[in-house]
């Protein structure tokens, strides 16, 4: 159709001749597309941010729990089980015992509750936390149940007013037993994220101690109902999970008993992402309805335009315009209106998303940036194009089918 360009030109001519009306017609589409784009990119940005933060806090982690049945049968996970997991499953980088409790301590700064996490020397592998002073305790510390501990710089400041605390002692009281732990390392606590909070006032002070050192308070220090396995981040953690269960079942002769339950970090992330996707999708759908309303607006204005221009259509037909030519001209007009509206809507939507993220970042202390993707923008453009053509067809047909003499007679 070599004449196509001519019809597009006619359409543009007419849009320009009615600038105000054309803009109002587009407004519906602009608002619709802008809100969809804005919601989708804020949603995507939030999801990205969440994934990133949670990922740095816990990627590759697999939680292993003993079921009630196992505990009733007196089966717990032991340090030997943990060694077996390390030795027998390729890709397991570390295993952390889930032991610990909260006691109290008193310093010159006041009374604090203090939460002790029984750990092994592999604990640093579980997070991206950096050591700021001293060092993490080593295998020998664990072996010999030395009473040493690692504390974060923030908590050190809460206890002592300074983070230069390597070599100092913390007296911890629990079960009416008081022991002191020597600080060997200070970690740099990560900044609080939007979704992951590391500390706030009133939370207990956290310290890591060799899990073996907990025996002096409590005999059950080497029986765990809960451990965390760290798998190679590149590996499929559900495959590793299966192997963990297999190894534990073999060691406890509990195959088929459902003694050990695992939940991998991947599972949790998948659930979270599905949820976020559903929420974003639903809000986008609601915003999409406004797009539909915008489309109906385009149809309405095009119908008015056809009525107004009946005589013009008659003249064109009497000069030899075919039904298809008139149709093309009017369709081009509604398509241009919606595509242009869609384009403006995309720009406004992205600008709006940036605005929202900036406001949330500064007022809520969040760290958000909008996430948008080429498929999203392309999808929106195609959709607005489809809206224009779909809602343009009826008015265009109405225009094109007029008989020339009938159309000429109307004023």
């Amino acid at each position: 159709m070599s004449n196509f360009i001519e019809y597009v030109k006619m359409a543009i001519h007419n849009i320009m001749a009615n600038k105000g009306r054309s803009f109002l017609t587009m407004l519906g589409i602009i608002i619709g597309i802008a809100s969809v784009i804005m919601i989708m990119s804020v949603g995507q940005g939030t999801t990205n941010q969440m994934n990133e933060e949670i990922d740095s806090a816990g990627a590759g982690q697999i939680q292993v729990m003993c079921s009630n049945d196992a505990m009733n049968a007196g089966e717990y996970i032991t340090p030997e089980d943990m060694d077996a997991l390390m030795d027998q499953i390729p890709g397991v980088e570390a295993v952390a015992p889930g032991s610990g409790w909260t006691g109290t301590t008193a310093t010159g700064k006041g009374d604090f509750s203090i939460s002790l996490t029984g750990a092994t020397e592999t604990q640093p592998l579980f997070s991206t936390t950096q050591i700021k002073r001293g060092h993490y305790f080593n295998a020998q510390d664990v072996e010999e149940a030395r009473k040493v501990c690692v504390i974060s710089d923030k908590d050190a400041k809460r206890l002592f007013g300074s983070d230069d605390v390597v070599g100092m002692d913390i007296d911890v009281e629990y079960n009416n037993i008081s022991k002191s732990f020597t600080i060997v390392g200070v970690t740099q606590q990560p900044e609080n994220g939007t979704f992951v909070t590391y500390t706030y006032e009133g939370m207990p002070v956290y310290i890591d101690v060799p899990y073996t050192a907990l025996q002096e308070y409590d005999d059950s220090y080497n029986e765990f109902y809960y451990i965390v396995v760290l798998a190679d981040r590149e590996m499929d953690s559900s495959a590793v999970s299966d192997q963990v269960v297999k190894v534990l079942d073999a060691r406890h002769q509990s195959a088929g008993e459902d003694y050990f339950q695992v939940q991998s970090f991947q599972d949790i992330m998948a659930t979270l992402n599905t949820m976020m996707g559903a929420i974003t999708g639903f809000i986008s759908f609601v915003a999409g309805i406004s797009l539909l309303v915008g489309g109906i607006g385009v149809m309405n204005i095009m119908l008015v335009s056809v009525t107004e221009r009946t005589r013009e259509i008659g003249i064109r037909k009497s000069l030899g315009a075919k039904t298809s030519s008139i149709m093309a001209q009017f369709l081009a007009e509604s398509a241009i209106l919606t595509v242009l509206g869609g384009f403006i809507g995309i720009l406004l939507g992205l600008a709006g998303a940036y605005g929202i993220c900036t406001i949330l970042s500064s007022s809520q202390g969040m760290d958000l940036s909008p996430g948008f993707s080429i498929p999203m923008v392309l999808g929106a453009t195609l959709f607005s194009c489809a809206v224009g053509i779909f809602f343009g067809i009826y008015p265009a047909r109405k225009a094109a089918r007029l008989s020339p003499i009938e159309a000429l007679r109307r004023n």
Partner: protein
Amino acid sequence: MEPLIQVRDMCKVYNPGENEVHALDHINLTVQKGEFLAIIGQSGSGKSTLMNMLGCLDVPTSGEYHLNGSDVAAMNDNELSVIRNKEIGFIFQGFNLIPNLTALENVELPLIYRGIDRKTRKTLAVNSLRMVGLEKRMTHKPSEMSGGQQQRVAIARAIAAKPPVILADEPTGNLDSASSKEILQILKEMHRDGKTIILITHDDGIAAQARRVVRILDGRIESDVINPNFS
């Protein structure tokens, strides 16, 4: 030779039933290629109605119309569009210009629907406007022109593509005698080029310039004579 236009027993009844108007009443008319024909009659006698039929804009209530040997009643919408575009240059009594297009754009319209490329189109349209003496008004919109100027744009539009048949409904109705003369001169030139000209008028002086004069009265052909003085 096959006649260009062959009309047999054509009737047109407006508002059938109540308020019937028999605008055309059993018209029989044959026009050969290359004729210069004037149709003359009083106001309301049915001239424009007949012109609409000949121009394939309207369909008769009864009777037959063969154009170039083909039955117009049997043609579909697209075929009619092509005929209106390629065969016929229509000069409407009411001009029928598109108000938001300039004179030049109005003249270009039928050329666009013919699929003529932009450059050729411009040249043809400009030449045609020049022929009717409107080279200084090409970028004006109809509302910025006098009645006579608008009429000349309508004429330029009809002749721009040099169609074989020109149907002119009162083309000099709004023009002074000097301009009328020029327009008639253009039509005569086109006739000399071999085009068929059908000219409607209620002015005997203008009709006298045509080779054949058909007089209609109340939708009927009253007389159909060859002009002995035709030069």
